[in-house]
C-alpha cells in the first residue's frame, strides 16, 4: 500500500502521505537521538542535586567530619556516623574482588586460549545466564549454604590455623559475616568479569599469537607477554565492571552480612554496608528528626564512593592506554 503510494508522483499522492522533506526528518532524528542519549546523564545530575538538597538539613546541623568519621549510629540520640557503613562497604567489596578476580582471570585465559572453541560457545551463554539470576536468589543461597558453612567450617578452621593473621580473628561468629557476603558477591560478579575478559582476549588478533609462536614461544609465554598485555585495558574494564556491581549490590549482601553497625576488624565480623542501611531503613521511623536526611546522606556517600572509584579506574585506564600506545 505504502509502496504503491511512494511510486506515485509526489503531487498526486493523498495529502496525509506526503512526507516532509527527508532533511527535516534527518535533523529531527539527530536531535531526538541526542536527547535520549543525554537523558541518563540528566537523571544522574538531577539525582545528585536532589540528594544534596535532601541532605542539607543534616549537613547544616552536623560538621561533615563528624558524619563521615563518626563511629556511632544512634538515630534516636541524634548520632549519625557513616564511618562503620563506609568501611563495611569497602571491606565487603574488596574481599569479594580479592576472591573473584584471580580465578576469573584464569577462567578467561582458559576459555580464550586453551579451550576448544566449542567450550567457549557453550560457556558464554551460560555465563550470561548466571549474570542474569536475580540477586535475591543468590542471597537465599548465601543464607542456606554459605552462612552455616562460615559458622561451622570456615570460622573454626581459621581459629585453629589463621588466628594470628590480622583480619582472620574469630570472635563468636554467627556466620553472618563479611566473609559470607564476600563469597556471595564474588560468585555474583564472576560471570561479568569472566565474560568481559574472555571477550576482550578473544578480540586479540590471531596474527599476534602466531607472531609470538612463530619465534618459538610457548603458549604460556605468548599469553603472558602478548595476549594479556594487549588485552590489559579491556581486562581492567572487566574488573571495574565487577567492582561497580559489587559496590551497588544490595539484596544478596544484606541477607548474609549481619547488618551490625560496627567497624569490622575481621572477615568473620558482621558488617553493615551503605546499601543495606538505606534499603533496610528508608520509609521507617522517619519521624525521627534528621533520620531521613541522614539516609539521603548515606546514598550521597555511596554515590560519591562509586564515582571516585570509577574516576580512578578511568585515569588508570588512560595511563595504561598511553603506555601501550596501540
Amino acid at each position, binding site marked *: 500500500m505504502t509502496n504503491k503510494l511512494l511510486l506515485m508522483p509526489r503531487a498526486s499522492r493523498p495529502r496525509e502521505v506526503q512526507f516532509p522533506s527527508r532533511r527535516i526528518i534527518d535533523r529531527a532524528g539527530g536531535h531526538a537521538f541526542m536527547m535520549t542519549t543525554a537523558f541518563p546523564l540528566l537523571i544522574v545530575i538531577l539525582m545528585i542535586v536532589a540528594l544534596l538538597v535532601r541532605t542539607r538539613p543534616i549537613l547544616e546541623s552536623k560538621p561533615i567530619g563528624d558524619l563521615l568519621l563518626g563511629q556511632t549510629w544512634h538515630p534516636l540520640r541524634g548520632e549519625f556516623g557513616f564511618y562503620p557503613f563506609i568501611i563495611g562497604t569497602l571491606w565487603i567489596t574488596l574481599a569479594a574482588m580479592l576472591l573473584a578476580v584471580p580465578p576469573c582471570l584464569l577462567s578467561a585465559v582458559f576459555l580464550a586460549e586453551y579451550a576448544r572453541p566449542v567450550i567457549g560457545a557453550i560457556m558464554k551463554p551460560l555465563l550470561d545466564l548466571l549474570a542474569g539470576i536475580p540477586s535475591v536468589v543468590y542471597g537465599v543461597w548465601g543464607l542456606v549454604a554459605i552462612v552455616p558453612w562460615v559458622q561451622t567450617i570456615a570460622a573454626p578452621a581459621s581459629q585453629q590455623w589463621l588466628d594470628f593473621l590480622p583480619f582472620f580473628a574469630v570472635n563468636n561468629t554467627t556466620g553472618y559475616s563479611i566473609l559470607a557476603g564476600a563469597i556471595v558477591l564474588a560468585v555474583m560478579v564472576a560471570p561479568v568479569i569472566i565474560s568481559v575478559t574472555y571477550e576482550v582476549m578473544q578480540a586479540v588478533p590471531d*596474527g599476534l599469537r602466531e607472531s609470538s609462536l612463530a619465534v618459538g*614461544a610457548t603458549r604460556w609465554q605468548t599469553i603472558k607477554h*602478548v595476549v594479556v598485555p594487549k588485552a590489559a585495558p579491556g581486562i581492567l574494564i572487566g574488573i571495574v565492571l565487577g567492582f561497580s556491581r559489587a559496590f551497588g549490590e544490595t539484596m544478596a549482601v544484606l541477607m548474609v552480612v549481619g547488618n551490625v553497625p560496627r567497624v569490622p576488624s575481621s572477615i568473620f565480623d558482621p558488617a553493615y554496608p551503605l546499601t543495606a542501611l538505606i534499603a533496610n531503613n528508608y520509609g521507617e521511623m522517619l519521624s525521627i528528626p534528621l533520620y531521613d536526611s541522614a539516609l539521603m546522606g548515606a546514598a550521597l556517600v555511596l554515590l560519591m564512593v562509586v564515582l571516585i572509584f570509577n574516576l580512578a579506574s578511568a585515569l588508570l585506564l588512560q595511563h595504561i592506554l598511553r603506555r601501550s*600506545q596501540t
Partner: protein
Amino acid sequence: METHISIRNLNAHYQDQQALKNISLDIPKNQITVIIGPSGCGKTTLLKSMNRFLDLVSGTQISGDVLIDDESIYAPSVDVTEVRKKVGLLLQRPFPLPMSIYDNVAYGLRIHSMHTRGHSLDTAVQHYLEMAGLWDEVKDRLHAPAARLSVGQQQRLCLARGLAVEPEILLGDEPTSALDPLSALNIEKRLMALKEQYTIVLVTHILRQAKRLADYAVFMYLGEMVEHGPAQQVLENPQQERTRAYLEGEF
C-alpha cells in the same frame, strides 16, 4: 643442489576437506623457493606444514612427514618450539607485538634466554635490525612502541624479530601483500640478500614477484603439486598444461 627440507607423502585434511594431496618435494638449501597457485590451492597449508603451524588449526589431520636436515619435525619426541625457532615465518601482514621496537627484536632472544649466552642484547638487536634494513630508520627511537612504525617498517621489524632467534629457514606467507610497492620491493631486496645464509620459502600470488625472486618454483592446484623444478623451467617453460594455463592467467 643440497636439500634442506624434504616433504614426504604429505596429506593434510581440514575436517572433511583435503587440503594437501600426497605432496613429496625437496626444497633446496640457500635458495628461494616460491610456491604459486590460485587461492585455496593449499600453498599456505604446505608452507605452514614446515613450521608445525598446522597444529594450531583444530581439526587438522596430517599424514606423511616433513624432514629438516633429515630429521622429522613431526616425530613425537620433537619440541615444537625448537622447530619454530629454526624455521622463521613472515605473515601476510605485519603484527608488531604490543611492546617497543627494541623489545620486539629482543622478544625471541629473551624467550629462549639466548642473550645470556655471551653476546649483549643491545648488540644483537642492532645487528638484526641492520639485517632487516631498518636500523637507520629506528635507531633514535628504539624504545618507541612498534605500532607507530609504518606498515612497511613493521614488516621489516617482523623480519628482524624472526631473524633474531637465528633460524635456518625463513618462510613467507605472501609477506608483501599488505605493503605498498616500494616497501614490497624493500622486503624483496632483503630476501635476496638473505638467501646466502638462509633457505627461503615464499608463497606468493604475484607472478612477477615469483619471477624476480625464485630460484626454485612449485605450482600447486587444488591441493596437488602439479609441477616443481628450477624457476626458469617452471615459470618460463612449464611442462604441464595446468601450469601453463595458470601462468597465462586462465584461472
